[in-house]
């Protein structure tokens, strides 16, 4: 069911890269979802309307994308998830805490960081990719497979 889809992968990836390029060219910001969301949750920036508004706008754009696609007949994304709600909640906390501690996620380190050839981001991406692969190996195939 989940086949290898290199063409839509490349096309969708190019759009992600375009969004990252445009955000830098237009607003001077890095399109890192962790940093964008995290900046809203920091008490130091809560008083600054201009700083909050662009972050909210980017997030609104992310959520609006599938809503606009739905106007053209696409189904709303309700992905099937095998993990239990407890595991999903633990995963969510780990993703939130980990990305903020490591200053970035797949977009900030993975896409923007690699595009800038940032050593920090390349190291971070290598580590979270390797850890995620190891986690899936353990969950799906048991320790030692």
């Amino acid at each position: 069911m989940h086949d290898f889809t290199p063409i839509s992968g490349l096309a969708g990836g190019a759009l992600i890269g375009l969004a990252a390029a445009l955000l830098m060219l237009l607003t001077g910001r890095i399109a890192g979802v962790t940093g964008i969301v995290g900046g809203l949750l920091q008490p130091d920036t809560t008083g600054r309307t201009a700083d909050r508004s662009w972050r909210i706008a980017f997030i609104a754009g992310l959520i609006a994308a599938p809503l606009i696609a739905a106007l053209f007949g696409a189904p709303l994304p309700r992905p099937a998830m095998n993990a239990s709600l407890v595991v999903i909640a633990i995963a969510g906390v780990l993703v939130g805490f980990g990305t903020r501690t490591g200053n970035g996620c797949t977009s900030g380190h993975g896409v923007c960081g690699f595009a800038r050839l940032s050593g920090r981001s390349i190291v971070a991406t290598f580590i979270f990719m390797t850890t995620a692969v190891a986690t899936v190996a353990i969950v799906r195939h048991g320790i030692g497979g």
Partner: protein
Amino acid sequence: MTSQPHRALAMPVLASFVCGLIFGAGLLISGMTDPQKVLGFLDLFGAWDATLAFVMAGAVAVAASGFAIARRRAAPAFAARFLWPDRNDIDAPLVGGAILFGIGWGLAGICPGPALVNLAGLSLPIVVFVAAMLVGMIGQNVFDKNLWRRRAAAPRAIETSPLPSRADG
């Protein structure tokens, strides 16, 4: 009474919305909003799906081209200056944070961008994931703040800024 102050606020906001929209469309088209597809990539020992590598390749190539154009410009269109991340050091938070993120990503197959795009469908697992992710992010703020407070109490506090350095992403 000119509209300059309003434009100064409105244009970056509009640009950010459009960028979020394009970013979200890219995630949807690439299939990366589907955790099964992401887990298919991360599952090296199962029926491996290499799609995520193509998504990354396409995204990095286009972003790098755009950044190269930006590097030659004095300033972005709607802001005073480019806010390029300014850190090069590989420290313990970077490594530890990436490990924790990797575990969470491997457990659920969702990272922050796809989580927010998926929020539009309001399915229970996604709502739980996003709520937990926000708790984790706020928890990290509290943790970080206490860490800074402890460091500020130390004698050599003057050289360290109470604000975290510019985020990578």
